[in-house]
């Protein structure tokens, strides 16, 4: 109800007058340290990513915090070190931590500042019971299902990784030949000597990672059972045009970590207008011990990672009606027509012949013909 009001006012406001504005915001030289990741108590590496917050007007890349010393420390003086595997990303070996012990992260940055998280208990993560999905008018919704018979988990977080196979709209047997002087296409030729299409640019895969905070709690339920709608795929989306797969990673959280993620989620969703709720302060568990007043963003939680993967094929969603929006254009096979009509296109296959000579041929947008322009043609190892 309030949302509708807000959208109306917002609409009025947007149509009224908008202009660039430079608020005089003070922010110190280096940004706050942002710590992402968790300590994986089970098998598998623990990965921590260190970045810096950037000024409102620094329109640039992520600022990674490089060359830091990152260690996981146990209350019993155990120590495991993490190695920088890529810019700002630090990874450990498989730890298999003692579940009766408490652990924390200890970071020493390049500038000599030390940061520690609170000692936290190791939290068991129940396995994902199943990943289910439901078809509706708007597409499909994918759910993560889990439960904990001991009623101990209560707070859950998920990340996911989606991979899908997709095909170029058109197979291509032809490619342009180019004028060595002008660099303009001046004719066509077969890609393969046997006049067969180039299969390496027909079948591809795309992988994306979740970019939102997915958390749920069974706190208010009588039993610790979770049935969480994780994501929706709109009707007709490319993801389900051939075969789709999702791998869900489940983590358990303690209550304070849950509150941190909840606050983080609210802050990322707010637009910052006067109609939005006030921003929330983030109750993280990491502190700078060199300068206790320096804010640090992040919550390092200790739990296992549980994962599960499912596949959904196009045959399971009848009437999906994926439309690539690709169209064929008929082009006469002479340099003038090719330059005029076909220079931004990729040729597909011949149409009319006079003898062996191609009189005209079809062409389409490059991404409609070459799937490697938007994905990879390397088949993922887990693909059936």
């Amino acid at each position, binding site marked *: *109800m309030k949302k509708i*009001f807000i959208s109306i006012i917002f609409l009025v406001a947007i149509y009224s007058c908008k202009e660039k504005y430079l608020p005089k*915001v003070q922010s110190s030289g280096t940004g706050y340290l942002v710590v992402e990741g968790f300590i994986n108590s089970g098998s598998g590496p623990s990965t921590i990513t260190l970045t810096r*917050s950037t000024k409102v007007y620094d329109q640039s890349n992520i600022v990674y915090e490089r060359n830091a010393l990152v260690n996981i420390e146990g209350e019993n003086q155990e120590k495991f070190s993490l190695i920088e595997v890529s810019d700002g990303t630090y990874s450990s070996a498989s730890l298999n931590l003692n579940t009766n012990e408490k652990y924390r992260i200890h970071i020493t940055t390049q500038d000599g500042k030390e940061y520690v998280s609170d000692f936290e208990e190791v939290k068991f993560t129940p396995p994902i019971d199943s990943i289910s999905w439901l078809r509706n008018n708007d597409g499909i919704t994918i759910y993560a299902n889990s439960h904990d018979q001991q009623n101990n988990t209560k707070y859950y977080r998920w990340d996911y990784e989606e991979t899908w196979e997709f095909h170029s709209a058109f197979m291509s047997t032809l490619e342009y030949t180019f004028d060595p002087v002008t660099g303009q296409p001046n004719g066509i030729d077969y890609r393969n000597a046997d006049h067969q299409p180039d299969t390496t640019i027909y079948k591809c895969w795309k992988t994306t990672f979740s970019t939102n905070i997915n958390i749920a709690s069974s706190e208010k339920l009588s039993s610790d059972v979770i049935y969480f709608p994780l994501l929706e795929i709109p009707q007709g989306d490319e993801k389900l045009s051939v075969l789709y797969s999702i791998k869900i990673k489940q983590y358990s959280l303690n209550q304070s970590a849950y509150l941190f993620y909840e606050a983080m989620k609210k802050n*990322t969703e707010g637009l*910052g*207008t*006067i109609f939005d709720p006030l921003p929330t302060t983030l109750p993280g568990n990491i502190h700078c011990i060199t300068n206790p007043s320096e804010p640090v*963003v992040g919550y390092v939680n200790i739990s296992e990672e549980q994962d599960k993967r499912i596949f959904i094929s196009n045959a399971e969603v009848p009437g999906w009606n994926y439309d690539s929006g690709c169209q064929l254009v008929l082009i006469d096979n002479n340099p003038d027509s090719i330059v005029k009509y076909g220079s931004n296109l990729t040729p597909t296959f011949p149409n009319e012949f006079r003898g062996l000579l191609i009189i005209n041929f079809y062409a389409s947008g490059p991404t409609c013909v070459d799937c490697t322009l938007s994905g990879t043609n390397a088949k993922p190892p887990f693909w059936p």
Partner: protein
Amino acid sequence: MKAKKLIAFIFLLLPHFIFCQNKFTLNGYVKDSLSGETLIGATVSVLGQSKGITSNQFGFYSITLPQGTYQFICSYVGYVTQIKTIELHTSIAYNFEVVPKITTEQTVIVSSKKRDANVKSAQMGKIDLSINEVKSIPAFLGEIDILKTIQLLPGIQSAGEGSSGLYVRGGGPDQNLILLDDAVVYNTGHLFGFFSIFNGDAIKSTSLIKGGMPAQYGGRLSSVLDIAMKEGNDKNFVVQGGIGLIASRFSVEGPIKKNKASFIISARRTYVDALVKPFIKKTNSFYGSGYYFYDLNAKINYKFSEKDRIYLSGYFGKDKFDFINGKQSLKVHIPWGNSTGTLRYNHVFNNRLFSNTTIVYNDYTFNFGATQNNFQINLFSGIRDWNVKEDFDLYPFTHHKLKFGVQYTYHTFIPNVASGKQDSVEFKPNNAQEKYAHEAAIYFQDDWDLSDKIKINAGIRESAFQQIGSYKIYTTDADGNRIDSTVYKKGQPVITYFGFEPRFTFRYAINDETSVKASITRNFQYIHLVSNAGTTLPTDLWVPSTFKVKPQESWLYALGLFKNYNDNMYETSVELYYKHLKNQIEYEEGYTPATLEDTENFFTFGKGWSYGSELFINKTKGKLTGWIGYTLSWTYRKFPQLNFGEKYFAKYDRRHDLSVVGIYELSKKWKLSTTFVFASGNATTLPQRFYVFDGVLTQQYSRINEYRLPAYHRLDVGAIYTPNKHPNRKLKSEWAFSIYNVYNRKNPYFIYFDQDGSPYNGTLEVQAKQVSIFPIIPSVTWNFKF
């Protein structure tokens, strides 16, 4: 009733004691000679003496003097001062019928106050506005607006661009008691607050008290805005109205029985929806969407005798918003509005005791209905009051004027009640946390002329508030989990709060033109409006004090110097104030109104304080009239649960607030006016930094209200053109022109951050954007009267 009889009996006897001193009483009403409307706050004084009295809310006055012959002066804003010689050797009833200046001089000399009343009375921080004055000022889109005029006075701030909300001396928008003929008005704005609900054609007078609140008022911390509706001309029929750009007004008033009974009906409606309709094709998927609001004011009164009079008045106003999206077969219907009804009975027991009995019903409802395909949902919220009051005005001795009375209100609070329907299946979840309460108060107040120099206005108000069931109190463990509950049945008392509210103001007259005043007042507020956004919306709910929510409390200390110059042509004042607020309410950090759980479980409590000074220079006579009001103030809030427990600037904190109003009588035909406002930027919370967390670009916010929006300033101009009246025709008409925001200042409404691109490949662009809503807006309105 027994108690009432006893009180009446005591005061019936009182005059007998006084008569022993050979004193006599002159009493009666002050009225407009043309329309018969009683005049509120007119002064009846004795020539050559400082003795004087002002007429009460019903135009009644009473003055007691030793035997003798006196020249009584009756004066009122915009009326010719009348002098009447009366020989007082017995008690006499006399009604002053004063003549409006407009009929004698063709030009109204508008002055906001009685002659030198600002210096002479003990009351502080009170401003009376005549409706003429409101009409002279340039109006936004041609809609004259009492609340927006009030915002131009020192110590009063607008709640935002175009808003009719008020922030008074650092208090929130819910801390103003807004009365329309004694009925509490809970929502004062139409169209998200851009227009106030008060239709100028139906309003007789307005008085605002921002400090030194008299004991007869209570239940709010910051101010009282007492608006009286016209009674209706009891001599002739009058039709008046106006046609404006967005709305039209029409009203009829006249006698039902000459000098005995009269009525007024006044209506206003916007027609943006009707104008837009022809331009939306039937095939458009939004066909049928629209918005309008209307107001209807009606009042009748009947005079049984000089001693008994009855008034019945009502206000009905609604905003209706319909949104239809044919593509998604979605229909949304949102009506909201106030209704009030007031029945009042005046009785003059004798020439020194006046009583008024009031019964009021008022409600504010907000409905939300949506239909999509065969699914239907309905949400309903509101507040409903029944109120009974008994007030007495007693004029026992020359130097005293007493007011006392009792008040009782029964409140019903209805937060979001949801119900739904799919095909024939109905669901009515029992999720309503309806709340009920009794609120009562008793007060006594004396206006006492201690000497020619010293005047005191002292009062005591004792208020009480009782929350009654149904209600559930939960006991929780250390983690906040509910382990047990106590259930209160319907009508069963849950908790009772009492408030002792002393009110005291003091005036010392240094000379005839100069006085010093001081006041101390304590107020309690038992019902609250809590908003989780940076602005108020009609969806915000009024909530009562409960077991969990303690009443708000305030102490206000004020000191002022008042001086008039040039035979009261210039009135000036400087007031200093300090206000302390206890039990202020905000939502907890990060609260989003998504759950069905009782909202009071998400409240957090803290305190606030505000101090400042207000300067007011008012030119009341001459061709050029108007004022300059300037406020320098600081307003803080401190909540243990917010902003790390540190103090922060309230969103109403405004360092400088300047208003300049000028009205110039150019000729008999043209009247020009202008207003200029300047206000320091609103306090706001801004993101200071950005970072990426879990793949999401996230904002790192500053402390609460650490930053300021750019300053707000605006110039409006207006002109009223009155063509020569045709001598044979009754019709009088005028054209009102206005230009809002003349130099097209882009005032900030809010700031948001637009983000584009991805931080992973260096294409990220973050840009703060300032949104302003009202550019330069000209308007024209045609008003008529016959």
